[in-house]
């Protein structure tokens, strides 16, 4: 391999993210022995999986371009966790029913968002912001301000307890999502259409790509993935909390960006986003391990993000 190609490979966002994971793991182990122990890693991956699943939807919306972004995912996650908890009522028998209901409901919420973006042509930032308010308001109506509902035991087991090879089920779900989503993006007409509309919407439309349908679906899928995250989060926490999903809204965007998906749309993929989610969780975890007070964690976190922007978040020059 020539030096130039090595350098090019090193500059690829995915390589940077993977390198960051290794450095963070090594650094964590050095600072706090046991940080990189298998058990600890599994715990971290479980937390990363929750972020990774919601970031899947965010990833799709961002890939579709035209300033695609979904600020409503946090509200949808909270809503989904509440709905799931109340449908399953701690009973395994209602688990499937709960999952089906939640996924259908959150897909529909995303669908409405998508229709607003495509048919009314409301900028995604505005539309999803508005939708966030509606979902949060709806949640208050349903909960009457008092959260209720608990996870079915099976759900908690799937999420938290070892299923196979000492790994919890949620990791297999995440890997499955990773494989399926990557195949969908690379090997299906829908996937190619997503990249096409994200790169050059006008050209895509002239090439026969169903632009509006594709973009609407992206938002619907983002709702669906947020819904799935809500279910998994319920399994992880077992109880329903108000605003449980809020913490995911902006990190889901950051995970996508760290993973090398361009906010301009049309380039990137889900493998990078998975790595991005792990980087974020590792970083947070190290800062916690180091006993850095919350403010210090926040500052280091923010500065790291800015550093990553310097690596690959820059926009083109105005001068040719």
């Amino acid at each position: 391999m020539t030096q130039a190609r090595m350098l090019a490979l090193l500059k690829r966002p995915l390589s940077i993210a993977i390198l960051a994971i290794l450095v963070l793991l090594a650094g964590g182990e050095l600072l706090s022995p046991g940080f990189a122990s298998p058990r600890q890693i599994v715990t971290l991956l479980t937390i990363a999986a929750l972020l990774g699943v919601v970031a899947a939807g965010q990833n799709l919306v961002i890939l579709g371009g035209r300033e695609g972004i979904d600020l409503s995912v946090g509200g949808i996650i909270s809503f989904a966790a509440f709905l799931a908890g109340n449908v399953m009522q701690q009973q395994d028998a209602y688990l499937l029913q709960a999952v089906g209901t939640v996924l259908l409901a959150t897909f529909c919420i995303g669908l409405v968002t998508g229709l607003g973006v495509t048919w009314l042509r409301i900028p995604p930032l505005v539309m999803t912001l508005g939708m966030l308010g509606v979902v949060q308001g709806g949640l208050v109506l349903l909960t009457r301000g008092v959260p209720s509902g608990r996870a079915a035991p099976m759900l908690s087991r799937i999420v938290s307890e070892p299923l196979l090879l000492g790994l919890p089920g949620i990791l297999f779900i995440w890997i499955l999502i990773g494989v399926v989503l990557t195949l969908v993006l690379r090997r299906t007409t829908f996937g190619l259409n997503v990249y096409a509309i994200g790169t050059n919407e006008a050209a895509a439309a002239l090439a026969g790509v169903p632009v509006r349908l594709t973009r609407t679906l992206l938002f619907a899928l983002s709702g669906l993935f947020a819904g799935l995250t809500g279910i998994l989060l319920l399994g992880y926490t077992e109880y329903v909390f108000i605003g449980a999903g809020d913490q995911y809204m902006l990190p889901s965007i950051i995970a996508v960006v760290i993973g090398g998906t361009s906010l301009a749309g049309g380039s990137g993929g889900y493998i990078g986003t998975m790595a991005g989610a792990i980087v974020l969780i590792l970083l947070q975890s190290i800062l916690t391990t180091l006993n850095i007070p919350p403010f210090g964690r926040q500052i280091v976190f923010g500065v790291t993000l800015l550093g990553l922007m310097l690596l690959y978040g820059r926009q083109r020059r105005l001068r040719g």
Partner: protein
Amino acid sequence: MPILEASGIRKQFGGVVALAGADFSLDAGAVHALIGSNGCGKSTLCKIIAGSVAADAGTIRLDGNPVSFSDPQEAAAAGIGVFYQELSLVRPMTVAENIYLGREPRMRTGLLDRDALRSQAENALEQFRSVIGTGVHPDARVADLSADQSQLIEILKVLAANPRIIILDEATAALDRNQVDAVFHRIRALKADGCAIIFITHRMDEVFEIADRVTVMRNGLTVLSQPIGQTSHDEIVAAMVGDVMPPARRERKHVPAQETALEVEQLSAAKLAGVSFKARRGEILGLGGLHGQGQSALLRALFGALPLKAGSIQVDGKRLAPKGPRTVMRRSIAYVSGDRARHGVMAIRPIFENLVISLLSRERRVVVQTERLERETRPFIERLKLKFSSLQATVAELSGGNQQKVVLARWLATHPSVLLLDDPTKGIDIQTKEDLYSTMDELCSQGVCILLHSSDDEELLGISDRVLVFNGGRIVAELTGEQRNRQALYEAAYATAPAAA
């Protein structure tokens, strides 16, 4: 001593050489025409002089002193004003705001003097009052103006800075004859005041009418520079074309069939006012005329990319309602735009994806069968002599000509029976053009009906079986057989506006 002198200017964009050591010199009080075919580098040269593009090599001297502008602000401060072909107007802002952007009149307090801004704009508009049409006033938004009106506003904007060097890059492209006269009147006054003007145009008659000197560029080099009195139309054309002969009267292998492939009746849309014609299988039907007279609008309307107001379309005897590209392509109709960057390629995506995207949409399959798709597109890749390192390389790495081949191959893979070509050879090299021509010829012999709009008149006349001449959204003439020559084309194209003196 020339007021401005550029020598040995080089510039590459990605892998494409735009300027390969161009030279240019400009005298005060003179109009210097800069011409050449699309992509010859004249616009790039102007942007370098104006400071909005950085040169890779070469020197620019202003009044004999070497200068190097790091941004347009510096060039403007040195007295250089530029009319940008793509216009540098902010569409949501008003006419007055645009004309005086960055040099708005201020009161003693330093705040904007809105009344002065308005009255100054009013005065500036006065110069073009008789030709600019209705709806133009200082408070009108540029977004509400037509293309020719916007162009005149851009000219006023350039002049508002009182530049001593003025670059007009296709400043007359969308103007009618009266408007051109008004602009020329202004240019002569500026010349008398000692301004130096670089005048870029595609209209040869304008060169002989206004220019004192002419420079021709080809493939990023200066190939001819003469006082206008010492050169001729033929010499300039020869310099533009170079050694390669224009594709005049290409040998046609195909013979158009008798069956009608496409029948259009009284088609109206934005920029189209009742267009009717028939096109046969195996025919190349050319759409000619001055720039933007409805040729492109017709093709886009047929493809469903421009909403129709009225009219009917029949393809192979069956009615077509062009609701959008997806409904139209299902009737085996394909559209290729010459505006590759905006309407053709997905530049940052792999060549493979760009090649198969339309076929996938046409087939409505879920899974991308890579091998089968490669097999199906390969004949067209070979037919068009598409050169690439790997199908997974991005389209952005290809030259403009190869990018155009990708877009064409994308559509050929869907086996169209009607092919709409919207200025497909804009800014691509001779060899690529040759490949496109021979492919078109072959397609015709297979019975494909081709509608070709070209801004290159020689090409249009050379390869079309018939040419429909457009003027103001209507077909004003049909040229067949021996009528297919420049003379007839120009007479029809300029029919409503009297030819230049």
